[in-house]
């Protein structure tokens, strides 16, 4: 068996999103001058007291231009960790911002939502955010799934940041379950993600990471993998979504988490879902195959055009490989993956792959496909009980291999060209 893999589904690997405030708008009126001092970097006697001065201008009934200026200053504060902590300490301030984030125009809902995005990027601030407004998740969910809401993308980004942690993720599940009678909230979320043009003004890319985070929970995976429905099938084409790596990454992360359910592997790999071509296609390049090899590939991978590009994001490529690796945990799964020509795609990927850690993951998967079958009783690699000391040894070996791989690549880059050629892997 290869190195130790993740023992539980992981959330989206994307880094926390921070939105920087652009150029400050022209200040208007004498009151704006007073606001300018609040956001300045000069320390004052009582910073908390200074931040509290923003509160009247954030009220729903305040003048629109003053609201906008106040929100801009709040956004500026969230650019630094002390600023975020300062804002999060003001429950009333948070409530006011949340109210603005879901208020219709001319309220500065977009900027207010961006403040929330930056605050939610800090896991330590999730608790005060949710404490300030218990209905925060329900409100954001309503905005996200409203086909008319112009700032639905920003609302989804807040949800993506919040749902990275277990407690807010569980709370979001409850909000989804309570979101309305009739069809489930998860179904509405999947439809919003999979329906092109669901919201004419917001592409909803961040619903991908939201779903990926939610799929860490067994209830979500059970819904996605319900064979009596058509849910996971609708996600598959999004692995090739051209306009957003955020969306692609979210969907691939979701699929990878679904692949932990080895009891569903036969269904996932079978004709009803046919998941493997959608995991291999982003890893396939424009290489030529012989007619014999071509016939062994799924139809989606045959006769790819010369301008075919591989997935440009290395993290997504790695997640795709990890998903396929999970599908090879059982003997029937290994056979199905092998029979559909996965080795051909991975062989070419391995030659092309520039990222060391992705290349290592690719090598391990190739080893599984072309290596011997495990001993009797160890066929299901996800159910094998690995002793703790063995697991620690395997993890240590993993780290050593990755370090060595990186060192080799660094040597290649630093060494003179003739030596580099000589050292090139065969």
């Amino acid at each position, binding site marked *: 068996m290869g190195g130790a893999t993740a023992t539980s589904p992981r959330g989206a690997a994307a880094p926390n999103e921070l939105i920087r405030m652009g150029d400050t708008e022209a200040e208007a009126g004498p009151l704006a001058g007073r606001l300018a001092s609040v956001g300045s970097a000069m320390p004052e006697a009582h910073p908390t007291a200074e931040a509290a001065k923003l509160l009247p201008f954030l009220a729903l009934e305040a003048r629109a231009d003053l609201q906008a200026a106040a929100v801009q200053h709040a956004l500026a504060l969230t650019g630094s960790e002390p600023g975020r902590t300062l804002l999060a300490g003001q429950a009333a301030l948070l409530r006011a911002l949340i109210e603005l984030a879901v208020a219709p125009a001319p309220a500065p809902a977009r900027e207010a939502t961006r403040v929330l995005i930056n605050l939610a990027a800090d896991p330590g601030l999730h608790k005060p955010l949710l404490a300030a407004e218990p209905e925060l998740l329900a409100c954001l969910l309503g905005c996200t799934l409203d086909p008319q809401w112009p700032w639905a993308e920003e609302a989804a980004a807040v949800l993506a940041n919040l749902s990275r942690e277990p407690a807010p993720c569980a709370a979001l599940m409850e909000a989804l379950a309570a979101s309305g009678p009739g069809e489930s909230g998860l179904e509405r979320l999947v*439809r919003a993600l999979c329906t092109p043009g669901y919201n004419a003004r917001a592409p909803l890319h961040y619903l991908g990471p939201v779903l990926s985070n939610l799929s860490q929970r067994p209830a979500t995976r059970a819904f996605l993998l319900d064979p009596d429905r058509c849910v996971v099938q609708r996600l598959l084409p999004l692995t090739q979504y051209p306009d957003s790596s955020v969306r692609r990454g979210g969907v691939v992360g979701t699929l990878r988490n679904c692949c932990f359910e080895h009891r569903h592997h036969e269904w996932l790999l079978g004709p009803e879902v046919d998941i493997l071509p959608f995991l291999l296609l982003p890893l396939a390049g424009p290489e030529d195959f012989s007619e014999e090899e071509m016939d062994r590939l799924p139809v989606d991978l*045959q006769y790819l055009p010369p301008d075919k590009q591989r997935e440009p994001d290395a993290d997504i490529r790695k997640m795709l490989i990890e998903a396929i690796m999970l599908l090879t945990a059982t003997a029937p799964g290994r056979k199905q993956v092998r029979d559909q020509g996965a080795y051909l795609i991975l062989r070419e990927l391995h030659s092309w792959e520039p990222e060391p850690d992705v290349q290592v993951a690719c090598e391990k998967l190739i080893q599984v496909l072309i290596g011997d079958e495990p001993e009797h009783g160890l066929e299901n690699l996800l159910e094998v009980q690995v002793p703790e000391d063995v697991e620690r040894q395997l993890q240590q070996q993993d780290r050593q291999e990755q370090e060595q791989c990186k060192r080799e690549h660094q040597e290649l880059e630093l060494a003179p060209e003739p030596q580099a050629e000589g050292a090139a892997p065969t």
Partner: protein
Amino acid sequence: MERPELEASSDDAMDSFLEKFQSQPYSGGFHEDQWEEEFEKIPLFMKKAPSEIDPKENPDLACLQSIIFDEERSPEEQAKTYKDEGNDYFKEKDYKKAVISYTEGLKKKCADPDLNAVLYTNRAAAQYYLGNFRSALNDVTAARKLKPCHLKAIVRGALCHLELKNYGEAVTWCDEGLQIDATEKKLLEMRAKADKLKRTEQRDIRKAKLKEKKEQHQNEALLQAIKARSIRLVSEAAGEDEDSASEGLGELFLNGLSSENPYGARLSVDDQGRLSWPVLFLYPEYAQSDFISAFHEDSRFIDHLMVMFGETPSWDLEQKYCPDNLEVYFEDEDRAELYQGSNWSCSCQPTPQQHPILNSLSEARDQIHLMVPSWICFCCTTMKTPFSSRYKTVCLGHDTLGPSGLQPPSLTWETHWPAETDSGSSDMVLKLCGVRGLEKLGLTLHCRQTKRVM
């Protein structure tokens, strides 16, 4: 006290009724000789409704008909009656009549959108079974406008798109239906099927595109190879232009060759970048020809002639066509001149046969018709044969061979493949245009079966 009286009355009535039978004969019954026909006219026992109802012939049926289709009944009632009638026809698999009934129901324009949606959907089903998938699709689309959540219409529409090979649309309709009923099994199966067919279709499109691009590259490689050898291409369209054919024109040649050459042979390039040509040998003495599908540019005429004339062909009545005695000519049409290999001399020399075809092709005056070099080959020995002398005399345009016997003969020659070809025939008539020599000789050329020289 009235009860006993009533009872007495009924008893009396019954008695009088029975007495009536004893005194009067039964009337109004079936006639013995026509009872079957009369039985058939009673609506209850009718086996088949008449196509047209005549009130005199079928008064009972006419009465029922007028009750059913009474114009005073509401449009909704009439539409429903037509729907039920259509459903009956549908069950009997009489889909044409079902369509008519549903159409009549729709014409009532009743105010019930649900009923109209059902009429559209049912008519769509009937149209579907008649194979009118596009009409069926129009009907389910109309039904969905009236009743957006009508699942039967959505299922039918997805089936129509599947039959029309609109696989992407079929998947979309399935998804829309699954929004209404997320676990509808028929839609789940149909969606998987449509998705599979869509992906297969996309693969076939990619395959065809790649094949087309590959052929284009091959053609470009061929043209490059020809130009690299300074070989000029000539066609009727560019007959007046002595310059090299343009790229587009060359493309036209290459693309047209496959359809014009009945043997399907075409110019090809091997791994070392060497060309093989389809070559035609003409024997004007007997109006015969041989076709060589792949004449490698580095191979020699003599090697092909040795194989082709290893055995005497049936038309060589005098058995004089031996490789050693053969001369090879080609014509320069622009100048109406005849050349023997690379040698101006008309003398009988075996040397020209030693040259590979590439030398001849690269000569300045060489020309190629539709990618098939045309060669003239006929027999002569050290002693001039009667035909050989006559042929040269005719081509030279002189009555007798003059002192300038070494002057090249003058000949205009064109070769065309016939528009229609009997692929099963081993012989082929080549219509030769502007062949003054053959015209004067009154000959028609025949082509032998292909001989391939390895």
